[in-house]
C-alpha cells in the first residue's frame, strides 16, 4: 500500500491534479473561517456590481481630508468620465467644424479637450445634425466644463431644528481621504450576483456544497456499483445474467433523463442538496458495476482465489481479502470519476431548474442557473458565471488528472 502511494505520488499528472484539488479543499475549509458572512445574504441593492473595492461615500465625507496637489488629477478625472462614444462624437463634431481629421487623436484626452473648448460653439450648425444630437453636444459641453471648473462641491445636511438645508462642508478637487481611515470598506473580489450577493463568498460555499454532493453521489454510486459488480462477477451464472441485464439497460437509457424524471417528481420543496446527491448516486452506478464485474471475472479463477476457496473461506472473506485488494485501484479511479460527474450532473440539473431548492444553500449549478437566467453572459457580467465555470473545470480537471496519473501507473502500456 505504501509502495503504491509512493508510486502514485511520483506521477507528475497525479501530483498536479492532487495539488489543485487540495488547494480547492483548503480554500473551501479555511475561507469561511476568515469571512464569516452568510453566503446567501443579500448585501447589494441592485444586480451585478462589478468586482472591486467598495468605499463608503458617507464615511469618506466624515474622514479627515488631506490635500494633495497632483498634476494629472484633472486629466484622469476627465479620462475616467469621457467614454469612447463621447470621444468619437467629439471627433465627429470637430471634423464637421473643419478640423483636419489627422490632427484629432481621440486617445489624447488633454489635446482633444483643448480642441473641443477652442472650437465648440453651441450656435454653430453642423450640416445633417439632428436636434437630439445638438442637445447631446450641449449637455456634453456642460458636463465637461463642470468637470474642469476648480469649484468645490458643497456638502449639505438638513438641520433637524428648522428643516433647512445647511452647508456643513465643502469638498475640493484636491481633497483626499486615506482609505485606511474610512470606517466602511468592502472588497468584492468577484463583485455581486443578480441578487446582490457577494459572489466570492457564495462561490466558496457553493463549491463546498457541490463537492459534498459529488462525494455523496460518488459514495452511493460506488457502493451500488461495487456490490453489483462483485456479485455479478464472482457468483456468475443467473445472478450475473440478471445484474448484467439491468446494468446494460441503465447504460443505454440516458441517466440524465432519469435524473430529470426523478427530480421533477420529488418536487421543488423536497429537493435538498442531499436528496439531489442521493438521486445522482442512484442513477450513475452503471459504469462502476460494469468495470468491477469484468475485473472480478478476470480475477475469479486466479490461483490465490482458488486456494482461498479450497481453504474453505467464506465468500465474504474471499471477496474482502482476495478480490477487493486487486480491484481497489479501479474502484478508487471509478469513485473519483463519479465525484466529478456527480458535480456536473448537479450543474446540469440546476440549469434545467431541477436542482436543489434555492433557499438554503448555493451550489455551482444554481449559481450558473441564476447567472444564465439573469443573462449575465450576454450582459458581459463575467464575474457572475466565469468563476463558477473555472471552479467546475478545475475540480473535474484535477480529478481526472489524478485518474490519468493513476491509470498510467496501473496500466503501464499507456505510459509513453
Amino acid at each position, binding site marked *: 500500500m505504501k509502495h503504491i502511494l509512493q508510486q502514485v505520488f511520483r506521477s507528475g499528472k497525479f501530483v498536479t491534479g492532487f495539488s489543485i484539488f487540495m488547494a480547492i479543499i483548503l480554500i473551501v475549509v479555511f475561507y469561511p473561517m476568515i469571512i464569516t458572512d452568510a453566503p446567501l445574504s443579500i448585501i447589494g441593492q441592485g444586480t451585478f456590481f462589478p468586482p472591486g473595492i467598495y468605499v463608503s461615500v458617507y464615511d469618506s465625507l466624515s474622514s479627515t481630508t488631506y490635500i494633495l496637489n497632483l498634476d494629472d488629477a484633472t486629466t484622469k478625472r476627465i479620462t475616467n468620465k469621457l467614454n469612447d462614444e463621447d470621444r468619437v462624437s467629439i471627433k465627429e463634431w470637430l471634423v464637421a467644424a473643419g478640423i483636419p481629421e489627422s490632427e484629432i487623436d481621440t486617445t489624447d484626452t488633454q489635446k482633444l479637450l483643448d480642441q473641443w473648448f477652442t472650437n465648440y460653439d453651441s450656435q454653430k450648425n453642423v450640416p445633417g445634425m439632428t436636434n437630439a444630437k445638438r442637445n447631446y453636444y450641449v449637455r456634453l459641453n456642460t458636463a465637461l466644463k463642470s468637470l474642469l471648473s476648480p469649484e468645490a462641491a458643497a456638502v449639505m445636511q438638513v438641520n433637524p431644528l428648522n428643516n433647512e438645508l445647511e452647508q456643513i462642508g465643502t469638498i475640493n478637487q484636491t481633497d483626499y481621504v486615506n482609505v485606511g481611515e474610512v470606517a466602511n470598506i468592502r472588497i468584492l473580489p468577484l463583485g455581486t450576483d443578480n441578487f446582490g450577493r457577494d459572489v466570492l463568498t457564495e462561490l466558496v460555499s457553493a463549491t463546498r456544497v457541490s463537492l459534498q454532493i459529488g462525494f455523496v453521489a460518488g459514495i452511493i454510486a460506488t457502493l451500488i456499483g461495487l456490490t453489483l459488480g462483485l456479485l455479478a462477477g464472482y457468483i456468475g451464472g443467473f445472478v450475473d445474467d440478471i445484474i448484467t441485464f439491468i446494468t*446494460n439497460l441503465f447504460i*443505454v437509457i440516458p*441517466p440524465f*433523463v432519469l435524473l430529470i424524471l426523478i427530480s421533477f417528481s420529488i418536487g421543488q420543496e423536497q429537493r435538498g442538496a442531499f436528496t439531489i446527491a442521493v438521486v445522482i448516486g442512484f442513477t450513475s452506478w452503471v459504469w462502476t458495476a460494469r468495470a468491477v464485474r469484468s475485473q472480478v471475472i478476470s480475477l475469479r479463477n486466479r490461483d490465490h482465489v482458488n486456494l482461498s476457496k479450497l481453504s474453505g473461506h467464506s465468500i465474504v472473506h474471499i471477496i474482502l481479502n482476495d478480490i477487493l485488494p486487486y480491484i481497489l485501484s479501479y474502484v478508487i479511479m471509478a469513485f473519483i470519476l463519479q465525484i466529478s460527474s456527480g458535480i456536473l450532473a448537479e450543474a446540469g440539473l440546476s440549469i434545467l431548474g*431541477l436542482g436543489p431548492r434555492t433557499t438554503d444553500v448555493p451550489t455551482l449549478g444554481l449559481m450558473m442557473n441564476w447567472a444564465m437566467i439573469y443573462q449575465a453572459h*450576454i450582459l458581459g457580467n463575467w464575474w457572475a*458565471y466565469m468563476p463558477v*465555470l473555472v471552479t467546475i473545470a478545475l475540480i473535474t*480537471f484535477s480529478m481526472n488528472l489524478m485518474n490519468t496519473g493513476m491509470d498510467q501507473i496501473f496500466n503501464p502500456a499507456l505510459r509513453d
Partner: protein
Amino acid sequence: MLKGYLKYFLNKLGWFALTFVFAFLLNFILPRLMPGDPVAAIVSRFAQGMSNTSGVQAIYEQYTELFGTNKPMTEQFFIYLKNVARGDFGFSFSQYPRTVADVIKSSIWWTIALQFPAIIVGWLIGNTLGALAAYLKGGFDKVLMPISLFVSNFPTFGMAVIFMVVFGVNLKWFPTSGGYGFDLIPNFSWNFIQSVIVHYQLPFWSIVVIAIGGQAIGMRSMSIYELNADYVKYSRFMGIKDRKIVGYVFRNAMLPQVTGLALSIGTMVGGALVAEIVFSYPGLGTTLLRAVLGQDYPLISAVTLIITVMALFANFIIEILYGFIDPRIKATQSD
C-alpha cells in the same frame, strides 16, 4: 456469414425492444412512485398561474381522462399505453391550448439535426486526433492530450457559454440565441436557411468540441494498446510494411470506440440538451426547460420519453453498423 449477421441483428433488435419496454415502464412508474397525489398537486399548482378557468377545467378533465388517476395502476398503464401509441400525450400545461404532440413535433427535428451530426463529427475528429497522437507521439501528443483531457471534463453547457460569450457576444460573429432570426417565419427561402445555418454554428461546435476531447483520449489509449500488441511485432517480423500494420492497428482500435459511442450516446445527449438551453435553441432541451419552469408535467413526461427513445434508437443503429464493421461478429455468431 449472412446467417451469422442475421442472428446478431435479431439479437440486437430483441434487446432494443426490451430496453424500450423497460424505458417506457420507467417513464410511467417513476413519477407515480412519488408520495402524495401528483396529479392534484400539479394541476392545482398550475391553476394558480392561470386566469382562464375554462382552460384549467379542460386540462383537468383531459389529464384525468388521459391518466385515469382514480383507476388502478395497471389500468392507468394501459390507458397511457393506448394514448402514447396514438401519439396522444394530452395538452401542454404551459403552452395551452397546444397539445404536447404538437410542441414536440416542432422541436424534435431541431434536436435531431443538431445533436446527431455534432456527436458524429466530434467522434470522427476525436478519433482521428487520438490516432495521430498515438502514432506521432512527441510534441503533437504532448499538446493535444492535456487539451483533450481538459475539454473532455468540461461540461457541455460551460463550453456553450464560453463559445457564446467569445464568438457571439464579444466577436459578434454568430447570433447568441435561437434557431433562426427572431424576425423570420420558418419557410424554405434562402434567407431563412442562411439564418438557420448561422444560428446552428455555435451550439453545433460546442457539442463537437466536447465530444472531440473524450473521443481523442479514448482512441489514443486504444491505439497505444494496439500498437503494443503482439500481432504488431509478429507482423513486422514477417516483413509486412508499416503502413499496412498501422492500418491493422487503427481498424482494431476503432472498433471499441464504436461500441463506446453506442454506450455513451445517452450521456452525450444529456449534456447536449443543456447546451441547447444555453443558446435557447428551439429543440427538446429548451422545450424541457420551459416545461420545467411551467410545471408542465405531460410535456416533461413526453420529452423524456422521446429523448430516451432517440438515445435507444441511436444506440441500436450503431450496434447494427458495428456488426458490419467487425468481421468477428458474423463469424462467431454463425456457429
